[in-house]
């Protein structure tokens, strides 16, 4: 367990530091696209992805950086994409909201809320048709469950018993809108899924170890029985909905709520625990962070020296 815990911590740290670097560098106006940072929400990505193989696939939405990185998406291509360079993972055409890394199994990310849910189901349907032993993990937020296509997708995954894991990261907000503005207090998506014939479970969204362990079983189960499952993970985003800043001064989230969740940071929690248990030392962390820092520096440099796509690419790739 020691090894895996350390790995989970380091993976989260890596994502956190990359995201922080994006936030820090945003002011230089070289990343000229909207960014929805994952800071605070690293645990679901890392905990679940640790249980996936390369040929398992994920789809995600606007807040996709953590998923992309945890699944093994190429860092350089991602940072270059944010810089609009032709070395970017979508050759600069997509930007932060369209990350993709086919080799790593990051099939899609798009900023229309809910839209990748059926697309992910389609990919998983194909896996079943091809009798592959892989699964698709579909990441989405609490807001996305309000789209009708969410129900339609659950229905079909249940009807055809597809190898898909639906993962709802509930950070209680859709932009500035609290759940109470959007969903009845009595609403329970696990029960909704159950009423459709899909099993579900709730795990604390900031407890990476528990996510790792429980999702391991769940994913094995999906693979063994080709049956969908839904995971609900309560978590918290540290920064504003879109952009590099903190927007706590706007008071759309109560001070208490923020404090409670900041005190429950997935990374701090695990770090403290591992230090306490001596599973890891300060020096090791420092060391690792230096490594990450170099990796990040390289990625930004790579992005900076990469070329912008030439004019002719505007009208390329419209048709295959």
């Amino acid at each position, binding site marked *: 367990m020691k090894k895996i815990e350390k790995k989970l911590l380091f993976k989260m740290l890596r994502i956190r530091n990359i995201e922080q670097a994006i936030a820090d560098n945003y002011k230089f106006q070289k990343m000229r696209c909207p960014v929805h940072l994952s800071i605070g929400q690293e645990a679901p990505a890392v905990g679940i992805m640790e249980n996936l193989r390369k040929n398992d*696939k994920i789809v995600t939405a606007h807040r996709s950086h953590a998923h992309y990185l945890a699944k093994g998406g190429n860092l350089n291509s991602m940072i270059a994409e944010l810089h609009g360079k032709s070395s*970017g*993972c*979508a*050759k*600069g*055409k*997509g930007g932060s909201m*369209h990350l*993709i890394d*086919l080799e790593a199994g990051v*099939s*899609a990310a*798009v900023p*229309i809320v809910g*839209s*990748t*849910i*059926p*697309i*992910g*189901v*389609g*990919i*998983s*349907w*194909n*896996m079943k*048709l*091809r009798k592959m032993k892989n699964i698709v993990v579909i990441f989405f937020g609490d807001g996305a469950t309000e789209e*009708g*296509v969410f129900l*339609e*997708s659950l*229905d*079909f995954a249940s*009807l055809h018993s597809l190898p898909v894991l639906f993962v709802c990261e509930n950070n209680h907000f859709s932009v500035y809108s609290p759940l109470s503005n959007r969903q009845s207090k009595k609403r329970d998506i696990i029960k909704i899924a159950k009423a459709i014939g899909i099993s579900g479970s709730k795990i604390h969204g900031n407890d990476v170890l528990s996510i790792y362990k429980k999702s391991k079983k769940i994913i094995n189960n999906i693979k063994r029985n080709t049956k969908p499952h839904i995971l609900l993970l309560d978590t918290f985003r540290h920064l504003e909905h879109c952009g590099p800043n903190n927007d706590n001064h706007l008071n759309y989230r109560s001070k208490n709520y923020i404090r409670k969740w900041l005190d429950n940071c997935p990374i701090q929690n695990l770090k403290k625990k591992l230090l306490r248990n001596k599973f890891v030392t300060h020096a090791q962390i420092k060391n690792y962070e230096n490594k990450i820092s170099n990796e990040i520096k390289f990625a930004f440099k790579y992005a900076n020296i990469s070329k912008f796509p030439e004019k002719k690419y505007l009208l*390329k*790739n*419209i*048709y*295959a």
Partner: protein
Amino acid sequence: MLEKRIITFANAINEGLEQIMQKDKNVIVMGLGVDDPGGVFGTTKDLIKKFPKDRVFDMPTSENAFTGFAIGLAISGKKPIISHQRVEFSLLSMEQIINQASKWFYMSGGKVPVPMVIRLIVGRGWGQGPQHSQSLEVLFSHIPGLKVVCPATPFEAKGMLIESIKDKNPVIFFEHRWLHLTKGYVPKKMYSIPLNGPRLMKKGGDITIISFSYMLIECLTVSKILSDNNIKAEVMNINVLNPLNIKKINNSVRKTKKVIIVDNGWKNYGIGSEIFTRLFENFKKNKIICERMGIANSPIPSTISLSKFSYPTKFSIIKKIEQIFKKKIIIKKKYFSKIPSDQPDKNFLGPF
């Protein structure tokens, strides 16, 4: 000479589907009722008997999601063919079609094509009413990344369907309900017609008639009437609306200098507007005469007493052409059909 093989448009689609499914194991047919006794107006009839169950899928009424499913299949190696028994149902899936399917190849930097076909059936007649008889081709043709195909004959139906399935892009494949019943020559063997632009249906030097889908059939009749009147019409079938290839039409118009465009949908902001514009952009110096017709600018009412004025007819087209030629055109008796305007033929009695 051997007798030519004559089958209906619906059978041509059916045969095309069967042949391409035989040939390419990745082709999947999905949509409401594709496996049922009706078989989408006969076009998917018996596929369920000829192919394993996991290639012919009935769908729940979840149009938005199953368009997404099809995209998921397409980007992971299958070639799905969706059908909607009325184009109106696809409006539930516009987000997936316009935001996702049309842009996926582009926004992945050319990495991920989306080879899928969306069959949209346009309704007409027998009191279908406002929500079951729209055409809406322009809504799709406006979008870069979508191909929009509108066969008008059984021959085209089969050949263009097969080509659409082979194509690596999302293809919107329009079928007019009234065309399903029409008959024509269709080779038995598998063949495909490239999606590269208008097809010359009839040669002639006096006027160019441009149309597509069911309206083309009306225009072919018009060309016969003109022929009786010693006017030789060249009839061009714009069977690919996007990407629009105007070259062949230019050649025709260069010759005739007179054009009439008969739209299958509403005239305003319609397909005809783009064609009209392209022609005038291309003929800046040579003067041309161009007229445009289309569905009257209202929802299409259910009652026959009004819907008969919604659509262009051979008579109203001839009238426009009389204005162009500034002469009276005589229409022989045989062209005055006794079939009510809400039926394409006697056998079409609805109910839908």
